């Protein structure tokens, strides 16, 4: 008979729940790596649903956080080293390495990755680091494009992103049609997919800070990619991660570098504006 009252009480309990689950809050620690303080909290850009953007690092378990904070222990650093080897290795018909044209990556690639994806006037679509590597390999070196998630693709991407270590993420949406790709990415972000009928926003916005099973839901930021995932004991690319999230809604997965995932990369990266590039971040 009093079901309506009970319903109201239940709704209130849900609202209070946000504050109640103290263990679900992101931590307030500082992330300092090799003496450099990372920006793990930043004021959100205009038009963002949150007031503050938060690095996924703040949501991880203490051991996972410690592993990222210690660059000697972080297994992702091996991929940075491997990336440097590839950078200096000749490949393809033209007998060139990346270094043949770009010399010392610590100078020529410094802060470059923090501003990707960028507008690519030639293909008239956004380009990310993986696709830019392929572009140089095919057009400049006479080498083949990498297969998606080839170990060398991940290592080289990690190496280039690492040259922006600590630099705040910032995209230039004024170039070309970047704004319309951002618009499309936003649409995808709020579109529910699969039999479970969930959107990115269902988990990373509406349920941010809560636990889904054992996983503490973060804002789903891209600033740490490629990230070292303990579960897979391997580096994981952003497109791999997004495909996995979509698969978990029991939907068909879009192809890596498809329009859908490139638009999402633009939008998701923008949602992390101001956070330090943390590559290679460590996640569970």
């Amino acid at each position: 008979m009093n079901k309506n009252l009970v319903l109201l009480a239940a709704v209130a309990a849900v609202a209070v729940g946000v504050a109640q689950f103290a263990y679900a809050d992101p931590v307030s620690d500082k992330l300092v790596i090799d003496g450099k303080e990372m920006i793990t909290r930043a004021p959100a850009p205009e038009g963002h649903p949150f007031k503050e953007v938060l690095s996924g690092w703040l949501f991880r378990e203490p051991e996972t956080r410690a592993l990222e904070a210690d660059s000697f222990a972080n297994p992702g650093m091996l991929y940075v080293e491997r990336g440097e080897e590839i950078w200096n290795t000749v490949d393809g018909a033209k007998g060139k390495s990346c270094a043949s044209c770009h010399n010392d990556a610590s100078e020529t690639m410094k802060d470059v990755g923090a501003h990707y994806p960028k507008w690519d006037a030639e293909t008239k679509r956004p380009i990310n680091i993986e696709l830019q590597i392929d572009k140089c390999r095919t057009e400049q070196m006479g080498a083949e494009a990498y297969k998606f998630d080839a170990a060398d693709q991940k290592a080289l991407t990690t190496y280039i992103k690492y040259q922006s270590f600590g630099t705040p993420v910032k995209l230039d949406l004024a170039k070309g049609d970047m704004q319309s790709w951002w618009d499309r990415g936003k649409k995808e972000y709020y579109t529910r997919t699969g039999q479970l009928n969930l959107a990115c926003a269902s988990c990373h916005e509406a349920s941010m800070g809560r636990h889904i099973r054992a996983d503490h839901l973060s804002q789903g930021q891209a600033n740490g990619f490629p990230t070292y995932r303990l579960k897979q004991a391997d580096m994981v690319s952003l497109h791999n991660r997004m495909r996995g999230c979509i698969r978990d809604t029991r939907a068909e997965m879009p192809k890596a570098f498809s329009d859908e995932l490139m638009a999402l990369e633009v939008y998701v990266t923008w949602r992390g504006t101001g956070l330090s590039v943390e590559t290679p971040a460590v996640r569970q």
Partner: protein
Amino acid sequence: MQSGIAVVVAVSVSMLAGAAWAEDIAPGDVEFADGAVSAALTGKPGDAAEGAKVFVDRKLGNCLACHEVSALKKQLFHGNVGPSLDGAGTRWEPAQLRAIVTDSKKVFGPETVMPGFYSLNVGVNVRKDLVGKTILTAQQVEDVVAYLETLKE
């Protein structure tokens, strides 16, 4: 002799299957009124013990992904995307629980994160082998509802 037995078995199996089909209400035909579904989805009453299995099974209800239940402390990793279900059987009438599990959007509104477990109102690009299929069968919904009714305050 032998073929006679085979025929009898075949007939009784098809009768069972036929009976289940005839009495299940199809996902599109479930009637919601005031956040409740008063008619049972099947002719067979829900079985709380079966419901508990469906509830915890990660491939079926996977309800613990988003809900805590004190009575299931032995199971690892209860999520908290939704509220604790302790006392859900006291807070809600069976018909309301049936509505929540069948299609939570009809009760909580379109924005809820909770999936509809016996609904074809789903997201885009559903995995090919799941097109036209619901997460749970009508009987599994009845079983889960019977289990939820045991969660008294």
